[in-house]
């Protein structure tokens, strides 16, 4: 079992290290910004206090013309602790906070080639939303 609590500044090095291990980029400044008021940044830790995973999100109103919704910006789980419900526990904790703030919709953006994370969000009951993301190469 894991315990879920808000991230504190002292957790950031471990979060950056896990992120660097999984994505190749630790992005310490980005994670520090997630501690700003109004953002939801939650950590799951084992009963021995080790980092099992984290999730970050925020409620955004009228982003891209859409009414207020909770956005999931990031979720990472230590590969050694996957398939044990850590991701689901983090997702549910974040969604509970969104609900408590009165929003009734949660959304995220996922790399369409990242089948692992796509499957995770699908298993949480998420389906294709109303928006299509568009890109243009400016180089």
């Amino acid at each position, binding site marked *: 079992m894991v315990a879920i609590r808000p991230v504190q500044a002292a957790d950031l090095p471990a979060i950056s290290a896990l992120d660097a291990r999984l994505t190749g980029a630790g992005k310490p400044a980005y994670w520090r910004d997630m501690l700003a008021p109004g953002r939801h940044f939650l950590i799951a830790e084992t009963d021995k206090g080790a980092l099992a995973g984290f999730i970050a999100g925020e409620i955004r109103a009228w982003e891209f013309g859409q009414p207020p919704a909770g956005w999931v910006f990031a979720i990472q789980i230590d590969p050694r602790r996957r398939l044990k419900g850590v991701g689901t526990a983090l997702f549910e904790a974040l969604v509970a906070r969104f609900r408590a703030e009165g929003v009734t919709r949660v959304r995220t953006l996922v790399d*369409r*080639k990242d*089948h692992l994370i*796509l*499957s995770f969000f699908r*298993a949480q*009951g998420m389906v294709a939303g109303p928006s299509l993301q568009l890109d243009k190469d400016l180089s």
Partner: protein
Amino acid sequence: MKLQTATRLGLYAVLELARDPGRTLSAADLAERFGVSNHHLAKVLGTLSNAGLVRGGRGASGGYRFIGNRRRTTLMDIVALFEPAPGSRPAEAGEDTDIGSALQRVLLEIDEIAEATLRSISLETMLKPK
């Protein structure tokens, strides 16, 4: 998105059997449920059986049951058994023109989105009570 009849029957059969892996259903039971011929469904079940997703019993009364992994099997795994792999189809007339290749890029974009969707939905997710 249009799926071939065999693909749709493959999805129906796997999902119906995976709903309760302990249950055995005959090809005739399944054919009746989906309103198709026994013969058509038997071929589909043969493909699913070769892929290790279902196992069929012997004899006329032998039934089929699901033996795959509900969490690890995605809709794409089943679709890929019946539909040609993207990119494996022969080039069509006009594709080498500038308009043809621009159209190909649009169709590829649609294929990629469809594949991402099918690959992200496991049987477990499909069968989860809403």
